[in-house]
């Protein structure tokens, strides 16, 4: 853990709890900003324990153990640098130092000892982020014993965490990496009204899931509206959209009471025993506190508006709708309320609530000033996020919707990072951001282009030109000798 947990700091400051004098840097913070601030030391073990307890854990369990791969300084020189921050610099350089982006511009000096990569004729973008993946929980192979995505035993399973089902040996991770993806949110499936917590991962191999967890990233809460829950629970209920909404409301009414009980106890003298923990409600209470970001699977415009009413009733925010095939119909609402929409390019027609999907959806939402995000929900399409972005961009341009290349790139980088609460850390090529960078063989908006090299926190994790050294899942070893080369093909 090297990152200050800013979201936590904000929360604790707002609640005026036990940290009034403690400041907000993590006690283990060793990032560049954390100098010898005495207040950092003052954050007592008790405060940290409280923080963990509210988030649903103790003793430092379930924290990220991610470590970047070792790296030296790297200067990527002379490429077309697509920053996702407004600029596209032809003949630009990107300098990575200590795992971060040190500088972006023209004609940068080569630091001593830096590796220089000639990117002339090639393109450079931020690492791609998918806000909606089931890699690890619905892994390859998709066979008996491997399906971890839906705890379809109760309509509300806010108590389950996707990270507890992630299989780090999913061969799909390294194929996604080879497609330029550096960060993903793994979500539970959509069988349940409230499916559980999602986790944000960096695509760097580890032996356990905590090795892959994006340090300091907030968790997500997967919710689902519409057809799936009412189909899955048709017999026991909910069996209608009415029942769906009643289910959310009942859960959040309980969560409000739970939150009040806990907050009151923490603010008090603590002479009484701590309230009982409830795995479901501590997740939902964290949603109410704004510390877990709601990721709401929802297709139809009216269903999304219904979910916004739910959020209004209980005073929480929906960070992003997911799938949102009809987001274009309510893009003004999304823009006004600051709610993101994670969308496919043009999937449609596989069920009634997807019947009105159109290829211009993302461009329309983007043009309206809402946070447009292109997601995949697919172990295949995650490998062509750049192509799908181009398809959505050109679909918009073809009908006169004003979408720039930078806008489009942001759908799979900066906006996606925002939906996951990590936009201060990654998602653009700007100094200070993580060294999550892709070098493409050509324009990433061409079907013929490949990701040549993928950096995560400044280190090369994938290099198409090397025959050894790219990650390969244990599962693929030896089982099919002539085929076991992972994502490089």
């Amino acid at each position: 853990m090297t990152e200050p947990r800013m979201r936590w700091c904000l929360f604790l400051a707002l609640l005026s709890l036990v940290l009034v004098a403690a400041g907000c840097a993590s006690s283990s913070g060793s990032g560049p900003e954390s100098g010898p601030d005495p207040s950092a030391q003052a954050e007592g073990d008790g405060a940290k324990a409280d923080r963990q307890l509210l988030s649903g854990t103790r003793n430092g369990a379930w924290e990220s153990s991610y470590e970047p791969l070792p790296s030296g300084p790297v200067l990527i020189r002379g490429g077309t640098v697509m920053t996702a921050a407004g600029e596209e610099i032809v003949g630009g350089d990107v300098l990575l130092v200590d795992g971060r982006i040190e500088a972006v511009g023209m004609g940068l000096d080569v630091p001593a000892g830096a590796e220089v990569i000639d990117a002339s004729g090639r393109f450079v973008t931020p690492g791609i982020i998918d806000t909606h993946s089931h890699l690890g929980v619905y892994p390859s192979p998709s066979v008996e014993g491997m399906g971890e995505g839906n705890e379809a035993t109760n309509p509300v399973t806010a108590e389950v965490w996707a990270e507890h089902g992630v299989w780090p040996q999913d061969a799909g991770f390294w194929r996604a990496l080879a497609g330029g993806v550096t960060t993903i949110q793994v979500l539970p499936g959509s069988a349940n009204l409230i499916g559980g917590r999602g986790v944000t991962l960096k695509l760097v191999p580890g032996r356990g899931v905590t090795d892959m967890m994006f340090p300091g990233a907030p968790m997500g809460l997967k919710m689902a509206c519409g057809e799936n829950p009412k189909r899955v629970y048709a017999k026991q209920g909910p069996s209608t959209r009415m029942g769906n909404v009643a289910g959310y409301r009942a859960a959040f009414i309980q969560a409000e009471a739970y939150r009040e009980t806990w907050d009151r106890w923490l603010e008090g003298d603590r002479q009484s025993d701590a309230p009982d923990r409830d795995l479901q409600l501590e997740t939902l209470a964290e949603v109410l506190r704004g510390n877990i970001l709601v990721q709401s699977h929802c297709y139809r415009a009216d269903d999304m508006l219904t979910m916004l009413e739910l959020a209004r009733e209980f005073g929480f925010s929906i960070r992003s709708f997911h799938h949102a095939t009809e987001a274009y119909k309510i893009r003004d609402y999304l823009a006004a309320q600051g709610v993101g929409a994670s969308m496919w390019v043009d999937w449609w027609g596989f069920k009634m609530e997807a019947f009105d999907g159109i290829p211009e959806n993302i461009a329309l939402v983007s043009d309206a000033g809402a946070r447009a995000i292109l997601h995949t929900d697919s172990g295949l399409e995650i490998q062509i996020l750049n192509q799908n972005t181009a398809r959505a961009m050109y679909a918009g341009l073809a009908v006169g919707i004003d979408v720039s290349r930078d806008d489009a790139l942001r759908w799979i980088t900066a906006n996606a990072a925002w939906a996951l609460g990590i936009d201060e850390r990654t998602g653009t090529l700007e100094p200070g951001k993580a060294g999550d960078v892709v070098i493409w063989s050509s324009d990433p908006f061409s079907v013929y282009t490949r990701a040549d090299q993928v950096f995560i926190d400044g280190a090369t994790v994938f290099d198409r030109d090397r025959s050894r050294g790219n990650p390969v899942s244990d599962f693929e070893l030896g089982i099919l000798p002539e085929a076991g080369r992972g994502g490089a093909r």
Partner: protein
Amino acid sequence: MNCAIGRLGFGVRLAASCWALAALAAPAAAQDLAITGGTVHTVSGDVLEGATVLIRDGRIVEVARDIDLPAGISLVDATGRVVTPGLFDVTTSIGLVEVGAVSSTVDGQMQGDPVRAAFDVVDGLNPRSVLIPVNRAGGLTTALAAPSGGLIAGQAAVIDLAGTSVDEMVVRAGAAMMANFSAAAAGGARGAVSLRLREVLDDARFWRDNRAAFNAGRSRDVSASRLDLEALGPVLTGEMPLIVSVHRASDIEAVLRIAADYGLDLVIAGGSEAWMVADRIADAEVPVIVKPLTNNPGGFDRLGARFDNAALLYAAGVDVIIGSFTSHNARYLTLEAGNAVRFGLPWEMALRAATLAPAEALGLAAEYGSLEAGKVGNVVVWSGDPFELSSRAETVVIRGRVTSLDNRQRGLLRRYRELDDERPAFKETGP
């Protein structure tokens, strides 16, 4: 024209030829057209710069530079554009589904016995399906509308994506028999797939040779219904291709053995591990329909899935066909082809794999799949490289007629293009 789908001795073939005639005799309005000035990829021959495709009575009569055009003929100016044959996807259920999860709109799957060879999709086809104009707008002009499920799923029909009646739309009924190398459908074991397929084929042969005895009640038992055995007749003679969905290399080998033993006209569909047995497939002269964007080891029957399957098969001399393996988004055929090129398939071969190769596999190459005299006038004018993400199908010609590229999705777009004081429900969305 009234061509009952035959259950007579030569029923399937009769039906097929009737439908083909019906298609070619389609209403004759203005089907004369000249597409001028484009870069014309004929597929069967050269790439011609600045050439004209001349269509009369719905058929291509000439493709060349400097053609003298008949006075008053309709013109499509394709200067600076790319002209190709209409795309042909053999991996769809177009016309047989509206909404995947609404069972009352799904007509591509017959429940019950895993052997449904007699099931013919034609009477379930819906010429007014919203999928047709959506996919047509993506440059798809022709599709195999195929049944799915079971061991032998039934008979697929080739349709052109134009027309308001089944008679108009169908190019050939009984164009292929669809089957699945599905252990689950056969009783839970791979060996059972072969056993059951061989049993049914043996019985179809027995039926063919002993029909009179069977009808007189002087026959041994057979393993499938009379109608199914009847329907398999043209498969046995090799007249009707058998398209088998199969992925594992050893399963492909099993299917190759069956095809050789019975003299079948086999086509492999899916074929995730086909590259591993490419030489054997090439020797058997069996085409393979691939979905190039397939590389996850999603099951133990496709551990070898890889993006360059198409390129490896082509290099081994296998006839490669590209399929979208979807219905709603069969327009992805260009995306699939582009990705096949990204992973090594030569560009011209990718175009062939989405046009002429499927026509050849279905015995329709005399009429479909390339731009040459005598073929049906299915032509697409693209704004650029048809596989490139920035390109659009600008003009789609089917049987010599320029088709509408409007569809329900564009109507939704028009309604919601501007969000203003007028409520969307009051907005006119007509073309």
